[in-house]
């Protein structure tokens, strides 16, 4: 165990995988000096045949990953902000997500794409999207959203070893956050959620950057005698529905916290599946806390106004829990 910053954990994971497998090649805009910070020092260590700066041309960066993977490599593409995925969306949606089926399973594409998501840093609308819903809807892509340094390391390593395209979306602005990371080889499997806190009254599923306020809310609610069980799905494709359904079977109540915009969000997806497969155990409505269907504003107070926070999470859980008491 060592206290590590999330960016450093990603860096450690990439370095370990580059040492482990010569076929792992990293590229992107400004990766050599690492403007994002998660690749600092990698260039000095491995040189330009393993990591290189590219021109600004996202359309080609995502497309090249397909060809490089087809040629037997394991590209790791650093795309900076997830908004820039739109610029490279054609190869993501029309190639990465589809080529394997279109070729009758001839091809496998061990591609890892890293980008930062989310608001909260006054980066404004074009640098703040939480856009995993679009990726989830494409099929054929894995999506990981680490919320802790340990998961960041374990999920990046699993993504790089996975034979399919995997997106690892770092929570924006968390580079500075530290957490314990197990020493040595540490893998977190894709598709396994983590129960971050146990509770019996309400299940709270909190995605990525929303985990922290959810845990804070749960701690506060405990003092009120309300037991919130907090689940971090860790990956959205594959999504560990069993853990969520199991928890709802116990609590009968569900709140999903998702920084993505509300329409067709991951929260909507989780709510829909529980309303389908877990309906029998539901004792009350499913509450979703998301960013409304807006472009992220620049002003800090406006950002705070639209992004789910501890107070709103606590209020939603409390509201459902009251129902819980009554029926109890």
């Amino acid at each position, binding site marked *: 165990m060592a206290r590590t910053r999330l960016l450093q954990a990603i860096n450690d994971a990439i370095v370990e995988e580059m040492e482990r497998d010569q076929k792992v*090649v990293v590229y992107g805009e400004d990766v050599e000096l690492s403007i994002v910070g998660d690749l600092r020092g990698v260039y000095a260590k491995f040189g330009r*045949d393993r990591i290189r700066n*590219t*021109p600004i*041309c996202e*359309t*080609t*960066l*995502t*497309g*090249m*990953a*397909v*060809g*490089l*993977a*087809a*040629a*037997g*490599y394991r*590209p790791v593409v650093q795309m900076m902000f997830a908004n820039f995925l739109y610029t490279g969306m*054609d*190869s993501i949606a*029309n*190639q990465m997500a589809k*080529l*394997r*089926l*279109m*070729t*009758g*399973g*001839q*091809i*496998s*594409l061990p591609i890892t794409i890293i980008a930062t998501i989310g608001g909260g840093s006054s980066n404004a609308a074009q640098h703040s999207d939480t856009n995993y819903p679009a990726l989830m809807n494409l*099929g*054929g892509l894995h999506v990981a959203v680490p919320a802790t340094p340990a998961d960041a390391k374990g999920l990046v390593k699993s993504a790089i*070893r*996975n*034979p*399919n395209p995997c997106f690892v979306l770092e929570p924006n602005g968390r580079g500075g956050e530290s957490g314990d990371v197990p020493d040595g080889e540490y893998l977190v499997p894709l598709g396994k959620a983590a129960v971050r806190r146990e509770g019996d009254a309400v299940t709270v599923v909190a995605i990525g950057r929303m985990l922290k306020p959810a845990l804070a809310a749960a701690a506060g609610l405990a003092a009120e005698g309300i037991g919130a069980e907090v689940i971090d799905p860790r990956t959205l494709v594959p999504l560990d529905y069993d853990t969520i359904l199991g928890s709802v079977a116990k609590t009968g109540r569900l709140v999903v916290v998702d920084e993505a915009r509300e329409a067709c969000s991951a929260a909507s997806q989780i709510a829909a599946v529980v309303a389908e497969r877990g309906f029998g155990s539901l004792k009350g409505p499913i509450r979703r806390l998301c960013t409304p269907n807006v472009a992220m504003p620049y002003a800090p107070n406006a950002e705070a106004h639209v992004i789910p926070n501890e107070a709103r999470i606590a209020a939603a859980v409390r509201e459902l829990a009251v129902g819980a008491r009554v029926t109890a």
Partner: protein
Amino acid sequence: MAMTGAGERQSGSHPGAGPSPDEAVRLYETMLLIRRTEERLRDDAAAGKLPGAVHLYLGEEAVAAGVCAHLTDRDYITSTHRGHGHFLAKGGDVKTMMAEIWAKREGICRGMGGSMHVADVSKGILGANGIVGAGLSIAAGAAFGAKLDGRGRAAACFFGDGASNQGALMETLNIASLWQLPVIFVCENNGFSEFTPAAQVTSGRIADRALAFGVPAAEVDGNDVTDVWRAAGEAVARARAGGGPSFIEARTYRIQGHFEAESFVLGGGSYRDDHEIDKWREADPVSRFRSVLLESGTLDEAALGRIESAVAARVAEAAAFAAAGQPADPALAETLMFAPEEG
């Protein structure tokens, strides 16, 4: 005269040694195989036997044949929506390709891809592609891998004049030039994007786009397989030798419509006149090369006849194989999406 990246564009018939007699025969066989296969698919489409859209390569055979003659299974190609010719020229199997287009279980993509996605990864055929321009960056990526391998492999990217207006072309020219990637850009300029004439949507000379990035470029007669073969030979040699990318613009023409449902879709509208088509029929690459083989004494009528009936038999056999195939396995749509985790 070598291609040049020094701002000078090379046009017209391409100098240098021509194909050997054996190579010439193979070129003819390849073109003829494409010709007969496409004719058969044209007829099968007209008879309503093919479920999806088919874009035929009739009239453009010399480009795929002339380029792929220089490539082995270890090299890569990316192709287009009009990809049957590239698939066959690169050594793809005509039986499983036809079965694929027939949506059969025996198809090279098990019926999951169809005409616009025929691929044989084991032969470096990274696939026909339904997204115009998408093959450019895929080829650049494969060439990047080949460059890192350092084993002299190359990647050829086929794309149309219409595709050359996608920004992806310039992005990949830039990266290929900077990284000296072993990639050959092959622009099949058949004068149209769907029903739109090139003059309406393509400004300047396409080869100049390559020169602006320092990529050597040549314009060749795409209906003269020897001319294509020479330019491609030079480009592939440069790629293998670490000399970086090359650009070839092959002037050709598509004899069929944009796709086989064209006349239905056009509903009476027209975008080219029959004289133009007739003019190009006279420049037919297959019969032109046939005459060359005869006149050069490489083959006589008897030998040509043997080749032609052999090819006809292969195509008939492939069509029978496709027709007799089993329906695709529907479950594959779900089971094939993700590759199983290794180890």
